[in-house]
């Protein structure tokens, strides 16, 4: 599992809103960085890493909820949750198939057909989950999500004396 990226320049004394923009910015970057190769069912860790990235991002959005315009926050959370759910559907099948293949290897030959039949069923479900996930990972969809998150961060409710010091995230280039 990918470790959480450190948050550069984060301090305990940071005003909450400034910390929010720093942390959410990094978490969005993590999400984008893990988007490549996710549809490859031959490497199930990629989907796992992206799923964990969505969880970290959702956690950050929930933790720092009071810092953002509430309507924009709700919309962003909904979009991230939809993506997370799609990743979860794929991940559940990946985990089950991997577990069954390990168990199968230790089973007696007469016991294997039953497990094979279940694996076949799960492979079909995995394929359907992958197709659904592909719709979320289309470049334009991902770019739209990033724009939405970028605007959310830019719209953070900041005290007047903080305005000039706010960091900004630049995601559009990273998504390509």
């Amino acid at each position, binding site marked *: 599992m990918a470790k*959480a990226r450190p*948050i550069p320049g*984060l*301090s*305990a*004394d*940071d*005003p*909450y*809103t*400034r*910390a*929010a923009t720093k*942390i959410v910015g990094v978490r969005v970057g993590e999400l984008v960085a893990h988007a490549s190769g996710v549809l490859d069912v031959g490497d199930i860790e990629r989907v796992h890493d992206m799923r964990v990235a969505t*969880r*970290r991002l959702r*956690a*950050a959005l*929930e*933790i720092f*909820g*009071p*810092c953002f315009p509430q309507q924009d926050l709700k919309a962003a959370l909904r979009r991230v949750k939809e993506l997370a759910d799609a990743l979860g559907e794929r991940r*559940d099948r990946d*985990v*089950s198939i991997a*577990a*069954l293949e390990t*168990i199968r290897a230790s*089973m007696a030959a*007469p*016991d*294997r*057909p*039953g*497990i*094979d*039949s*279940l694996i076949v*069923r799960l492979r079909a479900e995995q394929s359907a989950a992958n197709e659904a996930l592909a719709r979320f990972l289309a470049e334009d969809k991902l770019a739209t999500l990033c724009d939405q998150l970028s605007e959310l961060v830019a719209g953070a*409710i900041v*005290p007047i004396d903080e305005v000039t010091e706010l960091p900004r995230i630049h995601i559009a280039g990273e998504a390509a």
Partner: protein
Amino acid sequence: MKARRVKRLDPDVSLEENAARIVSVRLAEMRSFAPAALDPANSVAQHDMRIAAKRLRYILEATGFCFGKPAQTAARRARDLQGLLGEMHDCDVMLPAIDTHIADLRVEDAGALREKAGDARALDPALAARARHRTAYRGLEVLTVYVQARRGLLFDRFLAFWRAQEGAGTWDRLDRAVAGRLHEIKERRRAEQRIENARRELEEAERKARRAAAELAAAADYPITDRTSGTYPDR
């Protein structure tokens, strides 16, 4: 499971103070599932504890540095707990999935047998011996036994892990670190308030002194002294 609401979050105060409030609620939330989740049959409470451990882990990943070593240790342990409960949850998902699969195979085989029987008055048992999925049932039953036993083993590990953390004081130390930080913040704020009050009192006292001096000077019909130079204007 809906997360408990964290009260008194304030965008205008520090990360540390808000994080302390969130960690405190998330930790209490996770621990609140302990009595129920320690019952092996209560998979709902175990699932809720897993979600709560996940929430605690993610807030500690981002803000644990505010609370020192107890937070680092608790973050690792919350991750371990989440992993263990996650494996148990995988078993809880797998068991009904196997049952559903067996039921589906049975329906399919029975339907096919019925079709083959046609208008016969009795069903020939030999037809069942040729059922399409006849070789699958045995392995699936063995798999059910395996997953059920694995769940039991994982539960015992979870129980031992939970008791070890309670015994080692992992959660208590985090709780104390967070409470201590909130107490320090409160004390600092009180001290700042006392300084502010003292400053105001001093200003007020100076204002009163100036007013008294002015009144005194007016009463004596004598020009007030220039306090900074200490000189008197010419009469």
